[in-house]
């Protein structure tokens, strides 16, 4: 299955992935309209220290602890993509407790949000990867 992989060596810490993510999940068609004057809560996040930076988003594990641990059944695997049923999630954050990558975060309306490889929005494939100027994140089969 194609996943987002990180090539830390090439991450510039430009944070564009975060903005492309936030835009992709905004359901707006214009990035300015989507992101102007807001503080973004992207599903991919840069960790940065000194000259090291890299992006972290859901790894879409084959044996996902978050899904196994989910108390409501809101998290499930659909064709390899771990997605969240926002209608079912009640924001207990057991998945945040479980995720070894720190890739799940609290979203708006006190439920969780996570990368669904943009299968949940109109872009269809990870928009963060499209926004990365240096192939520091790639969407591929490994």
């Amino acid at each position, binding site marked *: 299955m194609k996943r987002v992989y990180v*090539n830390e*060596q*090439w991450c*510039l*810490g*430009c*944070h*564009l992935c975060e*903005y*492309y993510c936030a*835009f992709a999940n905004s359901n707006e068609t214009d*990035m*300015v309209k989507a*992101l*102007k*004057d807001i503080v973004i809560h992207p599903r991919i996040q840069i960790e940065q220290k000194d*000259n090291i930076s890299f992006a972290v988003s859901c790894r879409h594990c084959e044996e996902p602890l978050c899904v196994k641990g989910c108390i409501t059944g809101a998290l499930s695997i659909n064709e390899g993509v771990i997605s969240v049923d926002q209608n079912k999630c009640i924001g207990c954050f057991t998945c945040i407790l479980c995720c070894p990558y720190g890739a799940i975060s609290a979203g708006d309306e006190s439920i969780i949000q996570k990368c669904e490889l943009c299968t949940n929005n109109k872009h269809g494939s990870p928009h963060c990867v499209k*926004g990365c*100027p*240096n*192939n*520091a994140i790639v969407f591929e089969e490994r």
Partner: protein
Amino acid sequence: MGINYLYQEYEVSRNMDRCINCRVCERQCANEVHSFDKDKNIMRSDDVNCVNCHRCVALCPTRALKIVKTDHTFKENANWRGSIINEIYKQAESGAVLLSSMGNPNNYPVYFDKILLNASQVTNPSIDPLREPMETKVFLGSKPKSIQRDKDGRLINNLSCGIELSVPIMFSAMSYGSISYNAHESLARAAKEAGILYNTGEGGLHKDFYQYGSNTIVQVASGRFGVYKDYLEAGAAIEIKMGQGAKPGIGGHLPGAKIVGDISKTRMVPEGSDAISPAPHHDIYSIEDLRQLVYSLKETTNYKKPVIVKIAAVHNVAAIASGIARSGADIIAIDGFRGGTGAAPTRIRDNVGIPIELALASVDQRLRDEGIRDNVSIVVGGSIRNSSDIVKAIALGADCVYIGTAALLALGCHLCRSCQTGKCNWGIATQSPELVKRLNPDIGFKRLVNLVGAWEHEIKEMMGGMGINSIESLKGNRLMLRGVGLSEKELQILGIKHAGE
């Protein structure tokens, strides 16, 4: 401030309606032009340091940025132009020679733009490269004057060693040091993928790149940096650099500050000491001396490597080339006055040398007149900008072209011509690790391969239009060229007719 104040050349134009404060411009500008004003919650730009490299423009996700030329001006004067005045201010302040990068930007005629190509109509069919084979393979090197046969009458291969290229394009010399490790890796990998060669320049060859040896030209320049037996044997060909189009008659100087780590190792220059390439080779003061070096290099490598002699296109280039063609060299590389550089004295770059088109035409004709054109192949460089320049160069008589600036552009260079600062925002002309990493060779090499591939397609299209299906039938085929707006003299030197003739 005061007498030494120079108004900035460029202004950052930020469309505040589009800016989303993502701060990518701030993070990506090594010149620290952009900053975030926390109090006002807006981005600010200090134009003074802007070099117009477009890094911020290119990465801005909302297209909120553009760079505009300032309309700040001196009183109009066609003679004392603003740039000239500013240069005087700079020199009056610094007392120093002005330095510039990349190629001559001044408004001299570009002969390629005044030459048009032919195409077949009716009497001779054009050839569709999508339907018919269209060949671009070239061999560089000297050709034997006669054939030999074995006792059974079979032809004996009496060719001296040469270079085989899938397209008549090579990446010209750019040293590791003047450009980054990642830029070199991109060039090396692209050369391998595209079936062509790249050139180490005078910076030696990093150990990591020995694996690309069969696609590498190793250069021997006046400083002899990084030159030793393994190096000479590592490449597919050896180039003796006698001159460079951007700075004929001038040596090079890589400051000690840049001679660190791998660069020091690769150049074989102690860390921190300046790497100075003298203006001449101090063992070559005449053509006989050059011949000695050519044969020394051949001896060293058991006559297994063709030797290229690279010269700058200067006034008597034809006579010089004639001498080189009799020196044992296999290939002559001629670099026109628009050729690029990592740093050169501005006055030299902008005022010395001649256009490559004229140099090529006169060299090719001279060697033919002397019957020694087969002794050598001719490679030309110095602002080959696109595939039609290549087609024209080959029709004028070149075997192959060198591309340098075009290759860098493919890697992201935006021709801001600030290489000498070492703060290349595109990770090319810099050694600063956080800038170098901006050029991912996976991307870089692909883009170079794309460029070469695209040009190959275009060359084939143009050849097909002319009814030519193999590039050797284009070489020196000046009937395929016509001049527009050129004087009799220029047409004569180029050896072409005027359009309409």
